[in-house]
């Protein structure tokens, strides 16, 4: 039987980037994917004849520069188009944030410099995170003289602790831009900007990768191609039943068909709960680990509605800022509304109004829709994965669509008359199709005891787990969800270092 050096579970961006890194280092790598297609969250599909869209997100967080240049997605067929601007329509008026910082400063008037300064700080934190991904912190010997933290601090941790609203208020005096930034970073999540610890979301941003031509699926194809050309074997349609553990050390995997695969190491890009409660027999897991994994909090709050439109929408701000239509359009009335959406989410309710982010990807990428027609997506925040009053039935799904339609109608009057079809993706679908517990796109509640150096646990450093040979590199591992593919790359680096140390001996 063939024996692999590393088996990577899941062919999403994290898995493929990890596989590329491992295979490039000369390991024998096998990637296993449950679906018949690769991509994970980075897929696109035809949801109505002739109309294509990425079902879970239009864009993903940015890929760090060094990973990007190693993989070179454009060479493998993914051309990424960043949005030139985003808009926010609220009670405080319409604001536009341009991607170009000089233009952003000019357009924002008196708070321009503050906005640019804030963006520079965020970019700086991202850059520091990316360089932390490249290097591994050395294993320090325990010393009685100098107590050391078990966990390794990550850049960006200085943001944890404060409420998002206060962190923004310290930097910006303009309430409309404050709301715009809050809406931007909280899009598709459930968090109250008034509660302490939510300032960490500032680093998130729900986009940054740019819109790949042809949808996110193209990006996945490029990553798949890159991993395969580095020498990784990718098996699609292979559903894993369990990870085999022998005396606390991994020996291989068992597929649902009963097939056994031997591997020295396993790198899982599933979330923490799926990996440890779904794939590992409870008898192999120390009770303390089991308890901790159970206590890890998930906070799924994203729902999506994909619209096929007869004609592109005409946004109310189209005259003043035509480029803003190409990016995200946030529909939030106020910070209070964001806080309210968190309250209803916590209670498991589906209210009539929720914060919605609209996007018309077909304006940037006309191939997504037939000529003259358009695709519009709506990302709804604060949608509970489990409703207090029953299941996600047809009625509930309809009211979800109504929230999106109402927001779209406010942003672009008359758009509801142009709708040909709609596809609704509730947190339940994100859970079943994508395989994320509770439909949590972030892979775990992003509060400060579960983020960065604490993710998933302070003593699981660099993707290591208490089980020897099992690495965690998915959305529940640091530095997810801030940068795309970095958790996988980071765990792969750790895995390589661990193997090499043993080889040298």
């Amino acid at each position, binding site marked *: 039987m063939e024996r692999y050096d590393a088996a990577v579970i899941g062919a999403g961006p994290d898995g493929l980037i990890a596989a590329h890194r491992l295979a490039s280092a000369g390991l024998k790598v096998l990637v296993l994917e449950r679906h018949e297609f690769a991509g994970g969250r980075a897929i696109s599909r035809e949801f109505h004849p002739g109309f294509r869209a990425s079902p879970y997100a239009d864009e993903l967080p940015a890929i760090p520069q060094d990973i990007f240049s190693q993989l070179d997605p454009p060479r493998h067929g993914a051309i990424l188009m960043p949005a030139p601007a985003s808009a926010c329509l609220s009670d405080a008026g319409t604001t536009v944030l341009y991607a170009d910082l000089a233009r952003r400063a000019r357009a924002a008037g008196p708070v321009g410099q503050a906005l640019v300064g804030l963006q520079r700080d965020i970019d700086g934190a991202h850059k520091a995170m990316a360089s932390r991904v490249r290097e591994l912190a050395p294993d320090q010997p*325990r010393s009685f003289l*100098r*107590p*050391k*933290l*078990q*966990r390794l*601090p990550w850049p960006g941790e200085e943001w*944890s*602790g*404060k*409420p998002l609203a*206060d962190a923004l*208020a*310290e930097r910006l005096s303009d309430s409309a831009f404050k709301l715009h930034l809050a809406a931007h970073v909280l899009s598709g999540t459930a968090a*109250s900007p*008034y*509660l*302490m*610890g939510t300032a960490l979301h500032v680093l998130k941003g729900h986009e940054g990768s740019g819109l790949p031509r042809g949808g996110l699926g193209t990006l996945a194809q490029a990553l798949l191609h890159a991993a395969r050309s580095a020498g990784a074997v990718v098996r699609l349609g292979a559903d894993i039943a369990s990870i085999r553990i022998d005396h606390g050390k991994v020996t291989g995997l068992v597929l649902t068909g009963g097939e056994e695969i031997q591997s020295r190491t396993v790198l899982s890009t599933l979330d923490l709960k799926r990996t440890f409660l779904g794939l590992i027999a409870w008898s192999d897991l120390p009770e303390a680990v089991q308890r901790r994994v159970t*206590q890890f*909090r998930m906070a799924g709050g994203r729902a999506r509605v994909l619209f096929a439109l007869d004609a592109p929408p005409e946004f109310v701000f189209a005259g003043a800022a035509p480029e803003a239509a190409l990016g995200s359009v946030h529909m939030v009335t106020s910070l*209070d509304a964001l*806080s*309210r959406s*968190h*309250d209803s989410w*916590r*209670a498991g309710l589906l209210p009539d109004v929720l914060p919605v982010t609209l996007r018309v990807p077909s304006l940037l990428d006309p191939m997504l829709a037939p000529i003259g027609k358009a695709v519009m997506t709506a990302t709804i925040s604060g949608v509970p994965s489990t409703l207090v009053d029953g299941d996600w039935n047809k009625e509930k799904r309809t009211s979800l669509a109504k929230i999106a339609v109402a927001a779209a109608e406010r942003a672009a009057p008359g758009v509801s008359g142009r709708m040909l079809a709609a596809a609704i993706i509730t947190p339940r679908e994100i859970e079943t199709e994508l395989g994320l517990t509770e439909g949590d796109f972030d892979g775990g509640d992003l*509060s*400060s*005891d579960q983020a960065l150096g*604490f993710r998933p646990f*302070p003593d699981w450093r660099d993707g290591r787990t208490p089980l020897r040979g099992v690495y965690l590199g998915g959305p529940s591992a640091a530095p997810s969800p801030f940068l795309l593919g970095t958790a996988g790359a980071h765990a792969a680096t750790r895995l390589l270092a661990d193997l090499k140390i043993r080889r040298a001996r």
Partner: protein
Amino acid sequence: MNAAVPVEHEGWDAIVIGGGIGGLIAAAYLARWRKRVLLLEARETFGGRAETNVLIEGVSAPVAAEIVYALDPQVIRDFKLYQRGLRYVERAMPLVALHPSGRHLELSHEFFAARSAIRKESVADARAYIHFRRELFAFARRMRPLWAPPNAWMARRNPGGSVASISQEFALSSADTERLDRAAHSSADAYLERWFDTDALKTALAFDATIDGVGPEESSSALMLVWRAAQECDGTQGAAGQVEGGPGALAKALATVAREEGATLRPMSHVVGIVLTKGKAAGVTLDNGMTINAPIVLSSLSASQTFGSLLPADAQPFGTLASPDMPARVASAKVLVALNGLPPFAGLSRHALRGRLVVAERPESVSEAKSASLLGILPENLVVEATIPTIADPSLSQSGLHVLSLRIPYLPAHPQAGWTANRDVLQKRVLSMLEVYAPGLSDRIVASAVLTPEDFRVRYGAAHGRSNLLERLLQPYETRIRTPVEGFYLCGADAEPADAISGRSGRIAAMIALAETRDAGRTLS
């Protein structure tokens, strides 16, 4: 300076603005060290928030704070307060989580009693409680150099406010550093979740984090639990107590102490400004136009009052002080009720009645009350902490009536319709909620008073939003006491890590002021 302004030349060494607990203690210490100290209080009585007032004839009740759990033991020792009339009538109040079904959880401060109460709910939790209490209290004690520095040198040691630097500075062990790191980043809910399963127990224990409107689901609120556990009440760690005559009596005792030490206490003197010469504090001006000079000025007023009105606009606060454009969104209120007889709480022992009775209908009620308050809405399910101070302290009531004192920690600071419109709604809602737990309560009510957040604002000045809890709890005292103005210090509740009757900031402010004048003297000579 304008020659027309009358100037008092009495050669004061230091002026203390505001006669709150912190101000009185600062004045007492400075006087003890042979400084000529003048304390100026705008009102007739001293004590500020530490106030016991007459509710109806023959019955008095604490107005704002009433439970004493953080009073600085060093102040008690230094001024021999026990010999001068301070008496704890209750030194280990039980914490009782009321349950609508009558299945209350009574957490006695006494360890074994608490454990057997928990055992009725869950054996596993009772076992966990042993380890939880031991670990929390031992760890909290090791944090005392930061939260209760014995001298100015310790208070000025600046570890930079990060977990790693505090660990280094105070030589914490690896395990304690882990604990501090975890507590500093966890919410109280998540912190307790690691130990316990029973909802009632978690709600009761998390209630200690409800100071200053901090919600137990917010990150860093676990550190508030540790801070509470580091305090001591009459020598008992982590306990809550009650002093005879209420906080008003404590203030009176401290005023006597300050006078006996040689400080001059001047009531009815309203300070309107601080005189600066060359960026240094040089004295204060009163509302009658008089200027009093002194090289050291301390303020026990709130930071917003001090920086908002007393200092010129260009001398702005720094460090952990929230900027004035971020007013508190969540505030607390009190409802005081005089009863003819004990409140008829069903299923509570007489011992439990002496404790803090926590009403939170469901485990989520606390978070929901906070969220509603943030949005300016009066919460549907109020969270209430009820105490009956007259049981342990009969001196409060000459007429045999009892006082039920209800603190509501989560309320909107500025509700949508304003507090005048909501005052009666609040009172009705609180009392009808308590009626569930104490049927027949309303029939025993003789008199009642509502103190809304608005009333507290008018009475004691506006409170700041204290969102930067992590900074407040991790930075040394000095950063909160010192101001950008040389010779000017804060010594009131806003210089404490959390709002409580403590007086520690008064002691440390006096120490720092003294040390700095000494240092300045040395550099001159």
